[in-house]
């Protein structure tokens, strides 16, 4: 059983409530079963031999996997890892909710959580913008490739302004992250192998993505899936890439004077310590008006990024979740919030006060050129 393999993690949770104040899902629903402690208690019951029942299953699928709890835990209780293994158990027993099965089917059949057709995706429609054989491949990720075309467009516009050649994959494959988070370990492995094979066939030097989950998947999950991107290929979020090339004389920015901040990304900043590049970029453009939110970096409020699959059908709380970010921004007099993923932008746009603009980092850069 997967939970048993992670017993040391389970044992690390002594059901103390030291992380309660940080939990995204618990502090939305207020149910004890939606806090890390409640989930720890439930998984302990499973470990002790109780069966999964629909209520336990729902609680375990309600976790946003944001990792906010990790900042509060001295005991190394890595709840997202444990939840993933619990979900793998649930899937093996074929007990996952119907909605999760539907998402899985979308991912297997259409390689995206929305179930959209390749022909409707940004990369399919805009493949001609890219130059095959270039050093850089741009990976949009699901939420951008099927919903937030404006982020992909802004990212590519930036490449073009910088005089850089890039390529797109018209039928952009799924990296497997979503399947892994949902508990479909075998399917995730297959997807990751297919993704790696495609990338490795392109002989690129850089993989640049607007989706922090893609980056996290390649850096942290691929090894366990048995997948590998060729060594020498640098994996970067768009913000890191943009930060690395802003010395390019072709790129100059006009100064931005309104108060501006960043809503940190769970997968980029909390999990992968890549918090500074977006700040470097913003400070280049708004040296006098960048302001940190009250809660930032490792202690930032979640933006709902990891709850991507709770795309309104399961998780109707996107607006409420990021409402705290928006409220704090309003107190600080902030006029622009920069985001780092499609999901974050979507949730914050829904929650933001009227006079606060929400822009992906790519959009902010293009606007400032």
């Amino acid at each position, binding site marked *: 059983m997967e939970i048993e393999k992670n017993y040391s993690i389970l044992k690390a949770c002594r*059901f103390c*409530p030291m992380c*309660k*104040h940080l939990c995204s899902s618990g502090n939305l629903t207020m149910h004890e*079963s939606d*806090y890390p402690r409640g989930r720890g208690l439930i998984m302990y*019951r499973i470990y002790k031999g109780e069966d999964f029942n629909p209520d336990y299953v729902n609680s375990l699928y309600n976790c946003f996997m944001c990792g906010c709890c990790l900042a509060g835990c*001295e*005991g*190394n209780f890595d709840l997202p890892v444990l939840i993933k293994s619990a979900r793998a158990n649930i899937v093996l027993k074929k007990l996952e909710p119907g909605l999760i099965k539907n998402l899985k089917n979308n991912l297997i059949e259409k390689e995206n959580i929305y179930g959209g057709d390749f022909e409707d995706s940004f990369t399919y429609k805009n493949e001609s913008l890219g130059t095959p054989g270039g050093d850089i491949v741009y990976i949009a990720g699901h939420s951008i490739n099927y919903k937030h075309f404006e982020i992909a467009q802004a990212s590519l516009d930036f490449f073009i302004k910088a005089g850089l050649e890039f390529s797109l994959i018209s039928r952009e494959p799924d990296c497997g992250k979503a399947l892994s988070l949902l508990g479909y370990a075998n399917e995730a492995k297959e997807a990751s192998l297919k993704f790696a094979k495609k990338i490795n066939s392109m002989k690129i030097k850089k993989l640049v993505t607007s989706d922090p989950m893609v980056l996290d998947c390649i850096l942290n999950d691929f090894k366990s899936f048995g997948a590998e991107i060729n060594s020498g290929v640098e994996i970067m979020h768009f913000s890191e890439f943009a930060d690395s090339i802003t010395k390019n004389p072709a790129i100059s920015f006009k100064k931005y004077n309104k108060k501006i901040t960043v809503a940190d990304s769970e997968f980029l900043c909390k999990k992968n310590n890549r918090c500074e590049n977006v700040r470097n970029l913003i400070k280049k453009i708004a040296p006098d008006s960048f302001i940190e939110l009250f809660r930032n970096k490792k202690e930032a409020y979640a933006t709902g990024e990891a709850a991507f699959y709770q795309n309104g059908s399961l998780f109707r709380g996107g607006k409420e979740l990021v409402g705290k970010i928006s409220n704090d921004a309003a107190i600080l007099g902030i006029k622009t919030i920069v985001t780092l993923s499609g999901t974050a932008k979507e949730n914050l746009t829904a929650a933001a006060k009227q006079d606060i603009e929400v822009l992906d980092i790519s959009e902010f850069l293009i606007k400032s050129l």
Partner: protein
Amino acid sequence: MKYDKNTYLYHMLLHELRDIVGDDFVTDNLADKVSYSVDYYWVSELWHDRGPKRIEPDFVIFPRSSEEISRIMVLANEYKIPVTVWGGGGGSQGGALPICNGIVIDMKRLNKVIDIDSQSMTVEVEAGIIMQHLEWELEKYGVSTMHYPASIYCSTLGGFVAHRGTGVLSTKYGKIEDMIISMEVVLPSGEIIKTLSVPKTASGIDLNWFFIGSEGVLGIVTKVKLVIHKIPEIRKFQAFLFKDLSDGLETGRKLMQEGLQPCVIRLYDEPETKSLLKRVLGIEKEGAYLVYAFDGKEKIVNLSHDYAKQIAVKLNGEDLGTETGEEWWLNRFKFFFPPYVFSLPQAFGTCDTVATYKDIEKIYNGMKKTVETNYPQARFIGHFSHWFMWGCMLYARFIIDNPPGDPGEALHLYNKIWDDVLRSALSNNGVLNEHHGIGIKIGRLMKEQYKNSFKLLQDLKKQLDPNNIMNPGKMGLGF
């Protein structure tokens, strides 16, 4: 009375609860029932680990207002169904456990900051707010309640009021009861009352004192107005080591009584210095470790430190410096949480008490002797953490590394130690508890503590809650 889910009466009640708060805010699902059957009380954790059967609520309800709570209480009286109030579930005495099943009212939706009055330096808050969330809000305005207990990350304001909680800075800023200006309370009957707009009046009996420390047996606190403070200019620490615990205690007493107003004094006995302090702070010293601090205007703080140092040195203290004290502050909560805190399979209890300076050392020695003489399988450690002009609090703990495997036997041994240790404290003018409360853990000893005055509490309970539906079985007030 446990409601059978297979009966229509169960569903009649469920329907009425939904009618009050909405369908989305009542649950009887199994995941929640597990989660509300365990708090930080060791016995509930033991039972979760290896007890045969949990005690679970029938329903958990999430009201959004005092009015909804009022309607719930009216309904509960009609059905004669027990009601237990749950804040953050961080209590160690079992006070929030639904030991008679029934309804659990989870207070966390009542979490708004209603008003910050910067002229009067007060904040009015709904009682279901997690304390750290309140502090985050106040921080934005450069103020704080200065109420910093280890459970700040999970426990609610209402929970602290219910059991008279205290924080690390209580020595200067007071326990929670010292911070309260006024409250709103829902009585067991459902009536909503407000206490007077300010304390410190001569306008009759102060109603606040009926409900502070009443652990949910006399009513539900829904709103609290608290004192707030500006964040001080500086807070500076100093640490000392004493070969003799008595010298440490005397130092603490003098710090309190020489007009210096420290914000922190914490004195660890030798066993705790040797074990926990070594583990958490890496201090490898033998003796009793003392840390104290002053906060406020820098000049005054520095002057206070000069006077304090003189007191400690005169009483044979070895100066460990400011950094050692700062290190303690940075890690002040680590002691209470994994992996530093005791946890199953160990059995452990915190037998905190408070007494005058005349009695406290005698109480410490008595409790220590009780454990070490009668329970060779147990260890005893203690520290003195909350100080007053007249005395101080002892945070004593017993730890058994390998209690019996059978949960019933483990519970019996556990309770036996509690009984003996607390009776030792009572016999030396101590009390049952200083800031964790009574709950179900030590309710059985309340009559011994209060003697004939316990009847006053029983009569008050009967008057306010004639159906005994409000957190029954707690504080020794019966089922």
